[in-house]
C-alpha cells in the first residue's frame, strides 16, 4: 500500500515539475564574457602530476618566463593566468576546462599537453565558444580533418609536419632502405607516417620493416636485435618520455651508435630528455620545429633567459608556450584588449606573424603554423650541456608539406593502417 502511494506520488511530482521546467529555460547561458577593462584571464591546462608532469612543468615555465620578461599586461589589461592540473587524464582535462569557462569565465584557454586531452577539450570549446590556443597538442586532425574554428595552434605543430621534410632529407643523404621503430599510439603513428609519406611514398625509398613498441616499453632488446639482419641502411625511430632515454641508451649498449645511421623523430632527442642523457646521445640526428642551438638572436636570448631563470636549457614545451605568449599578446594588442568580441580577436591572432625563438611563424588558413623545420644534431656545449644544433633548415614548412591542402586531405590521417607507402597511396588512387 505505502509503496505504491510513494511511487505514484513521485511520478506525478516529477511529471509536473518537468513540465514546468520544460516550459521556461533557466536564466544565464554559460560563457558570459569579460569587460575589456578588467584583467585578462587565461586558463592554463597542463599536467602537473602523472606521466606528463615533467613536460607540463616546462610548459608552465616557458609561459611564466614570457610574462616575466615582458610586461605582465597587454593593452592596459593585467594578465592573470590560472593553472589547473589535468594529471594527463582526458576526463580531468575536460572538467578543468569546463571550470575555467563556466566558473572562472576565462578569456582564453592555453594548453593542454596530450593529444586526447586536446581533442576532447577542443570539442567542448566548440560549443562554449571560448578561444583555445594549443601550443603543444600536435594531433594532425585538430587542424586538418576535424577542425574547430575557435581552436588555433599558436606556435604549435602537427605530428607529421617536421617529418615530411625529414623523409626527403633522409633520401637525399643517400639512404634507400629504412627500418622504423615507433611508439605504437596515434602520435608515433603520425610521426612515422609523415616520414614515410615522403621517404617512401614520394621519393621511392624502401621500407624493410616496421616495428611498433607499446608506450612504456621497459626493454628494447627484442626490437633492437631484429635490426642488423633486416637489410636496412638507416633506422628511423620515435619514442617518447622515459622510453626515449632507455632507447638511446640501449642503442649505444648494442654497439649500433656510429655504425648504423639513426634518424630520430621530434621529441626522441628533445631537450627535456637530453638533460637525462649522456655521451650516448652525442652526434645523433633528429628533426623538429625547435632547435635550442639555433644561432638566431631570438633563440639565443630566450635560451640565456631560461638558463638564468631555471638553470637548464629550454625544451620545445617551454619554447612553444613562450612563443605562444608572444603571439597571443600581439593578437590582444591588435584589438586593443577587446577579447570579448571573439571573432575580431581570433582574426587578429590568425593574421599575426612573429619572429619567435622557434623561428618565423605565421598561420595557414587551417589554424596551424607555417613553421621553420630543423634537422638537428646533438652537440655538447662549452658548459657541458647537450643541445640540438641545426645542420639543415627548411623555411616555411606547411602541415601539408608540398602537397597542398586539397591533395593532402584526400588521404586518411596517418595510422598503423596508413603510413603513406606507395602501394597504400595507389590503393587510394592518389598516385
Amino acid at each position, binding site marked *: 500500500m*505505502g*509503496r505504491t*502511494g*510513494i*511511487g505514484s*506520488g*513521485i511520478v506525478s*511530482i*516529477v511529471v509536473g*515539475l*518537468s513540465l*514546468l*521546467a*520544460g516550459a521556461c*529555460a*533557466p*536564466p*544565464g*547561458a*554559460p560563457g558570459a564574457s569579460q569587460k575589456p577593462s578588467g584583467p585578462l584571464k587565461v586558463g592554463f591546462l597542463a599536467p602537473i602530476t602523472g606521466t606528463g608532469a615533467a613536460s607540463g612543468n616546462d610548459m608552465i615555465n616557458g609561459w611564466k618566463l614570457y610574462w616575466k620578461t615582458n610586461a605582465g599586461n597587454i593593452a592596459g589589461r593585467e594578465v592573470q593566468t590560472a593553472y589547473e*592540473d589535468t594529471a594527463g*587524464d*582526458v*576526463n*580531468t582535462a*575536460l*572538467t578543468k576546462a*569546463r*571550470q575555467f569557462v*563556466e*566558473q572562472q569565465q576565462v578569456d582564453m584557454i592555453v594548453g593542454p599537453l596530450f*593529444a*586526447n586531452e586536446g*581533442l*576532447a577539450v577542443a*570539442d*567542448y570549446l566548440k560549443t562554449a565558444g571560448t578561444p583555445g590556443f594549443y601550443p603543444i597538442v600536435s*594531433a594532425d586532425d585538430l587542424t586538418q580533418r*576535424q577542425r574547430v574554428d575557435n581552436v588555433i595552434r599558436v606556435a604549435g605543430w602537427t605530428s607529421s609536419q617536421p617529418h615530411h621534410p625529414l623523409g626527403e632529407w633522409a633520401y637525399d643523404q643517400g639512404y634507400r632502405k629504412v627500418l622504423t621503430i615507433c611508439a605504437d*599510439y*596515434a602520435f608515433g*603513428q603520425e610521426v612515422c607516417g609523415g616520414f614515410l609519406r615522403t621517404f617512401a611514398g614520394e621519393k621511392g625509398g624502401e621500407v624493410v620493416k616496421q616495428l611498433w613498441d607499446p608506450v612504456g616499453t621497459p626493454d628494447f632488446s627484442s626490437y633492437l636485435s631484429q635490426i642488423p639482419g633486416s637489410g636496412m641502411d638507416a633506422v628511423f625511430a620515435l619514442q617518447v618520455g622515459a622510453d626515449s632515454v632507455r632507447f638511446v641508451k640501449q642503442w649505444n649498449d648494442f654497439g649500433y651508435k656510429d655504425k648504423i645511421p639513426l634518424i630520430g623523430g621530434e621529441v626522441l632527442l628533445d631537450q627535456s630528455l637530453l638533460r637525462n642523457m649522456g655521451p650516448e646521445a652525442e652526434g645523433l640526428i633528429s628533426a623538429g620545429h625547435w632547435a635550442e642551438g639555433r644561432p638566431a638572436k631570438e633563440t639565443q636570448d630566450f635560451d640565456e633567459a631560461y638558463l638564468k631563470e631555471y638553470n637548464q636549457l629550454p625544451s620545445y614545451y617551454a619554447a612553444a608556450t613562450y612563443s605562444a605568449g608572444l603571439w597571443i599578446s600581439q593578437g590582444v594588442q591588435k584589438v586593443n584588449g577587446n577579447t570579448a568580441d571573439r571573432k575580431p580577436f581570433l582574426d587578429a591572432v590568425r593574421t599575426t606573424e612573429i619572429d619567435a625563438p622557434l623561428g618565423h611563424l605565421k598561420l595557414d588558413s587551417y589554424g596551424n603554423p607555417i613553421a621553420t623545420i630543423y634537422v638537428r644534431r646533438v652537440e655538447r656545449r662549452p658548459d657541458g650541456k647537450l643541445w640540438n644544433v641545426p645542420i639543415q633548415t627548411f623555411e616555411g614548412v606547411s602541415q601539408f608539406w608540398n602537397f597542398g591542402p586539397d591533395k593532402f586531405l584526400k588521404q586518411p590521417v596517418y*595510422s*598503423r*593502417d596508413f603510413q603513406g607507402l606507395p602501394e597504400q597511396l595507389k590503393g587510394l588512387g592518389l598516385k
Partner: protein
Amino acid sequence: MNVLRLLSMHRAVLVAALALAVAVPYLTTSYYVSIATQVMYFGLLAMSIDLLGGYLGLMPLGHAGIMGVAAYVMGYLVSKAHWGWPAAVVAALLVTLVVCLVFGLLAVRTTGIFFVMITMAEGMLVWGLAYRWSSVTGAENGIRGVSRPEFATLYWQYYYLVLGVFIVCALLLTLVVRSPFGLVLKGIRESESRMLTLGYNVTLHKLLAFVLSGLFAGAAGLLYAWYNQFISPSAINITASTEGILMVVLGGPGTLLGPVLGAGAIVFVKNILSMYVTRWPTIMGLIFIAVVLFAQDGILGALRRARVGRSRGESVRSQGDRAWDALELEAESSRSSSA
C-alpha cells in the same frame, strides 16, 4: 506505528530531494549543473555495481568496461555511421546485453577473489579493444562528436534528460532489489549453499543479476558519452572501475541510496574541492581511510547508526556481518566440494 512514521518521513525526504533536483538549474550556474549531471550518471554506475557487490555479494572490477561497451557502440554509430540516436541507443543496449551474457557466463561460475579477477580481466579486454582497434575506436584519441539527442543539447536540457533516466533506473532498481528476485540475491550473498538446498537455481540468478547490472551500467555509459560528447579508453580503464567500487564502499554497499551519495562525494572532491586544494587526491585518500576505519558500512551506514544506534546499539549490516561469520564454515565447505 513506527513503520508508518518512518515511511512518511522517507516520503517527505524523497519529495524534498526531487524538488531540489528539479530546481537545480534555476538555483545555480551551469558549472554546478554539469557537476550534478555527473553525480547522477556516476551514481547510476555505482548502483549497478552495488546490485552485484552489495546485494549479491560479488564485487565486479570491470564495470567501467561494460559501461564502455554501450558508450563506444553508441558513440561509433552516432558519430561515424551517422545513425539517429534512438536506433543507436537500442543497438548499444543490445550489444551490451550480449556482451554481459558472455561475460556473465564466464564470471558467475566463480566467487570471491576469482570473481574480482575475472571481471577485471573482462574490463581490461574492453579497454584493450578500445585502445588497440584504432580504425573503429580511434585508439587513445577516442571517438569525438558523439552528439546528444536534439532535444537535449543545452546543458540544462541534458540535465533533465539525465535526471529522468536516473529516476526511472533508480525506481527499476528499487523494484528489483525489493522483489522476490532481489531477496534471492541477498540469500545467495548470505549463503549460497543454503539457497541451493532450497532448490533455487543459483547460477541462473547470478547470471540474470549480472546482465541486469550490466544494462544499468550501459545506461550510465550512454549518459556519460553524451555528457562529454566524447569517449576514450581512459574513461573505461581499471581506474574508472575501481572508482565505481570506491563510490559503493564510500556510500554504503547493499543500499541503493548509498552508492549515489558515494558518487556525489567523489565527484565533489574531484571537481569542486580541487579548485581550492591542489593536493585533493590526498584528501580523498584520507576520506577512504576514515571510512574503512570508522564506518565500514559507508556514509549511509554511519548516518543510520547515528539514528538507530540510540535504541538498538548496532547496525543492521554488522548483524549481517556476524551472520556471515557464522556461515563462513558452511560457505567454505560448499566451495571445496564444488571444486
